[in-house]
């Protein structure tokens, strides 16, 4: 108790440290030096051979190979349904976006990667003008998708997001020119 108090631990948790240690196994009688030497040699050799058995079985069993040959198997690559790639804005059945420019996603985004620029149509109703999405600052946290009440955006399946041009990381999602193609 005093040992612990000296170091100033939190008092309410001291009980945890003071738990009775479990009964320890009775100590084995001390081996002689030669016995220890021999057990080290023979036991050691046995342990090494056991390890070698594991690797040789893996080597001789071609089914144990688990790696995939990535660019070659691109066509048969299985993607997870909930995979989080970049944000995309799919079209609904009428071929239009669901977005109503409510800017909830913009508020939900922790990094300021989304800018929703609303505009007004002829009837004076607020509609989406431009949906700017910056892939370079996006951390793919999917908070925007969670915030969207209209299912207007979701996370895409594309994972090859590397590009040579930094400007191409600033996307306009509600236009066809963006990275995303429907």
């Amino acid at each position, binding site marked *: 108790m005093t040992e612990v108090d000296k170091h100033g631990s939190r008092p309410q948790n001291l009980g945890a440290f003071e738990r009775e240690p479990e009964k320890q196994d009775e100590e084995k009688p001390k081996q002689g030096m030669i016995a220890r030497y021999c057990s080290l040699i023979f036991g050691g050799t046995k342990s090494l051979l056991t390890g070698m058995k594991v690797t040789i079985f893996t*080597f001789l069993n071609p089914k144990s190979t688990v790696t995939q040959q990535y660019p070659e198997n691109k066509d048969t690559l299985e993607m997870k349904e909930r995979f989080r790639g970049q944000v995309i804005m799919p079209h609904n059945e009428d071929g239009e976006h669901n977005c109503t420019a409510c800017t909830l996603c913009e508020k939900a985004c922790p990094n300021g990667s989304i800018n929703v620029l609303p505009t007004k149509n002829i009837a004076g109703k607020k509609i989406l003008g431009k949906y700017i999405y910056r892939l370079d600052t996006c951390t793919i946290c999917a908070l925007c998708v969670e915030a969207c009440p209209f299912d207007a955006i979701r996370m895409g399946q594309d994972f090859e997001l590397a590009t040579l041009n930094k400007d191409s990381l600033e996307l306009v999602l509600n236009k066809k020119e963006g990275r995303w193609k429907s």
Partner: protein
Amino acid sequence: MSFFGTIWDGVGEMFDAIFNGDWSKENQIGATVRGWCGENETLADWINAGISLATLAAIASLSAMVLVYFERKVSGHMQRRLGPMRTGPHGIFQTLADGIKLFFKEGFRPKSADFFTYYLAPFIPMMGSFMILAVIPFDQHLQVANPELGIIYVAAVAGLAGFGLIIGAWGSNNKYSLLSGMRSGAQMISYEVSLLLAILLIVLVSGHTNLQEIIKTQEGGIFNWWIFKLPVLGLISFVFFIITTNAELNRTPFDLSEAESELGAGFHTEYSGICFSMFFLAEYVNMLIAASLATTLFLGGWHAPHPGLDYPGLGWLWFGAKTSCIIFLYFWFRWTFPRLRIDQMMDFEWRFLLPASMVSLLLAGVFMSMGWYIGD
């Protein structure tokens, strides 16, 4: 036409000699060359020397390439992956591509490195490997030189490789390299003792230091090889030989001088490009040499496992097969075991391997005087 015709005839003659000649008496290639030159024996010697050296260089570089490829493949399959698969079918050109890349890579020297030692070091292990390769008996007559003290020569030259590592490590002026150099120096010196005792055991029981003579004492089937001919003791000293050569080769579990998780890359931390590939090449050629020596001393060299299979001129096939098995053993060790610590490695050598080798040497003397042999 006539010039090419002559050359073509010469090549045909050579092939004829290689495939139909009587290999049991002499090296048919050398004999053909001597046949061409007639009286002029000096010319024949020079031509034969040139052919031998070219073959050695080819063996060294080709075997290193093949070994690197197979090491990567074996390690891949032991680790549940495929290894190189892209360059060529099943990646067979991978080492060639790596070699080309290393050749054209910039050789970068640290500013504070010592110029002379830094550039001298990579060539020493390479030189040692070539010198040993010259006395390896690939077949009864496929051997560049056959000195009477062949095995002593091998042991003497094998010590050179360690100098290369230490000099390179010191010349790099890098603390990691220095640690690695000191480690490899200690390791090389200690394990050479046990290696020599294991060799000495074979010299004792066979009564020869000439490599061809040692092989000839193992004639007549698998039970006349020294590994089995000396009951149990042969196997034990074979294991000692494999362990010590493994340590001399700086391979896991003795790869302390290259311990990549402790020292970065050890003695070749500061080397790049062609200088690095020299170290790398020497490492793999040395592996071939160690396996060849194990074959020569313990596994009957170019003799077939059964005397009926001993065709003259095809001994190198048996030699290659046995050597490959030993090399696979080295691969297997490397991709299974973790690394030892420096003091444990020293303990293992001085507290176990050295006394055990000495005891086995004594026992070999007893076996020899009592005539406890299996086989003829």
